[in-house]
């Protein structure tokens, strides 16, 4: 079991993109909190800034203003160890899966552990365990990622996100490229991660159907974030 505690606090975070003389405020003073064991869904149409907000939380982008605290530590500080943060504290699940096509399912999952210096035997054991939990077993373990179906790819991607046992799972349109049945399976997996393993799951999507899995939900429009009733 796990204790509910604040894991993520996003405070007045802003991000503006400039292209020549044009400026686009992708995220405008967004603020919210998320706890372990909860699924937070951020809804919004394309171009509303929800993916940018997710990347800001995942430290793939730096905010122009505001704070992002993970377990009370501001990851926006210039001296923050972002490499370690990305390896151990956060796991990404992308709409397009972003697996490395030349690697097998097993190798894709062991990759984050390999980068973190986990011994080879331990990598393999944990990867097989995670993939088994996602229903990927047998010959699929050694199948190249490029040969897997969309659902299989997304389950491998989730297993990879969990490889170094992060507290925070950031999912960007995780069902966007899947049929509805497979999408439901993926949503169930993500919900299960929150409920059973106490992960803090943030899902950004334009699919309102995802709200059924949410503990908390926000609407993003023109970079501005506001809470919505479920």
């Amino acid at each position, binding site marked *: 079991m796990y204790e509910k505690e604040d894991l993520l606090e996003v405070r007045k975070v802003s991000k503006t993109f400039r292209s020549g003389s044009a400026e686009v405020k992708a995220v405008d003073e967004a603020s919210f909190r998320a706890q372990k064991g909860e699924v937070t869904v951020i809804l919004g149409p394309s171009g509303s800034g929800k*993916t940018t907000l997710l990347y800001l939380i*995942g430290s793939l982008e730096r905010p122009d203003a505001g704070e992002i605290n993970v377990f009370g530590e501001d990851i926006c500080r210039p001296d923050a160890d972002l490499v370690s943060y*990305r390896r151990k504290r956060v796991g990404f699940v*992308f709409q*397009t899966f*972003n697996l490395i096509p030349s690697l097998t399912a097993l190798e894709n999952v062991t990759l984050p552990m390999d980068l973190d210096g986990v011994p080879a035997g331990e990598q393999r054991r944990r990867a097989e365990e995670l993939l088994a939990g996602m229903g990927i077993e047998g010959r699929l373990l050694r199948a190249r990622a490029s040969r897997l179906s969309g659902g299989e790819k997304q389950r491998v991607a989730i297993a*990879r996100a969990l490889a170094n046992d992060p507290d925070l799972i950031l999912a960007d349109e995780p069902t966007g490229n899947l049929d509805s049945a497979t999408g439901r399976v993926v949503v169930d997996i993500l919900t299960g991660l929150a409920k059973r393993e106490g992960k803090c799951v943030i899902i950004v999507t334009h699919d309102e159907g995802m709200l059924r899995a949410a503990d908390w939900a926000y609407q993003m429009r023109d970079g501005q974030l506001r809470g919505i009733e479920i």
Partner: protein
Amino acid sequence: MRSVKRGLRSFVRHPLANLVVVLLLFVCLTFSLSMLAVKMAADSQVEEVKRSVGNYAELRVSLEHQMQVYQEQRGQDPAKRQAEARKMSEEELLEERAKILVPEQVTDDFSMRPEIISYDKVLEAVVVLPDITGPGVETLLSLRRRLSPGSAQASSSAGGSSFLFEGNTHGASASDFLRGAKRLVEGSLYTYQDYLNANPVVVVEKTLAEENGLRVGDAITARITGAEGRDSEMELTVIGIYETVEAESGGTGQDFQTFNPAGNKFYAPLSVVQELNSTPGYVELGSYYLDSADSSRTLSLAFQDMVSEGLVEGDKYELATDYSDFESISDPLLKVSRTSTIALAGALGACALIIVLAMFIIVGGRTRELGVLKAIGATDRQVLLQYAAEVLCVCLVAAVLAAGASTVVSQQLGDWLLRENTAAADQASQAQGPGDLPGGRTGIPALRNMEENLYKKGGRFSFSSSPTRQTAELDVIYRGILLVYGILILLGISLLGTAVPVVWINRLRPARVLAME
């Protein structure tokens, strides 16, 4: 290490893309390594030629002067000339005899030049040996020598056979022995000490010795030529017997000075031959070996300075070198070296272009992979090492294949380049006309032949079908240094290839890459 392993795995997992790059690199690297090998072989060959050709000079009476003396004497009545000779004092007779000889002092002074590493003096003379019977073949030299007043008189008055005597300061440094045309089979050669002490010793030809029952230790009598009534005799001790290994090159008439088909040639210390010829203090030539072919020009300039300062009579003496031979041999080699350097630079440039373009395509095609790696916590260093290992693998495979292929093709490429350059040089020579051939300063064949007839030891560079041109072959041998250069090329190309991912990784923003559909 893990990054390197990932790089190796990635190399194996992208066979098609890597194979294309490997093949392109293989072609360019094969050409690069071949050109490098050819260039090194050509350079090394030029150095070898420098050690054998172009580093030799002779100080001697010019052929023009010899011809002038000859013309003067031919115009005189022989009887009158002999009558005049009879009236001459010893000093006057010596001066007359030495008209086509060089004072020993001049050759000695010139030997002090710092470029000269070894020095010898040579005198050939026709000597009458009353008790020895020879084949009776008169050498062309003896004919020539008989034209001079003293010798003519002596030869005509000789009761025995005339023989050619070659004298120098050390038997082992005689050209024929150095060249291997003659080989000592019994006894010993005279030494420098024999020369200094004027020891009356002689080395005789084997057949001649057998026919005359001569053995080492026997004595033979030689007649010393002098003015009328002033002949004397010298007893010479046989200290060595030699045999002729190969026929001398006088058959074509090019080398008349050493034309001696029956081997009736004697070798004795220079001081002894000088005494036998009654020309003490005079030599036919000073023979100099230089530290390098590069010094040949310096020495020629020094000689010209000596002439302009009046230390040497420029119209009487000349400094003959084999530098023109060196040029004719080394020119095609130098051209091969230059051509191969340009080709090497071009091929390396192509290698660089291929690896950079290939890496741009490869890394560009795997931008998303880079973004993923960074998103899941890979450091720039880890990503870079992975790609560096992959690039190194590509280059290594190409280099190993290229090294193998270049061992097969480099000799052919080198031979082809040498052939092309030699043919071009020949065409240029023919276009210039015979007067400007590298072997001679003038268009008169006799003078050119004379200039080539140097008293030097033979080398591996033999005369080709053209009498004025010597040739060299290009032996492309793989040396250790080539491996070092090969590794440096490999590392250089790998580093260049790695530079692409370095730039790419530094500029990469994973959020942008991952956001792309």
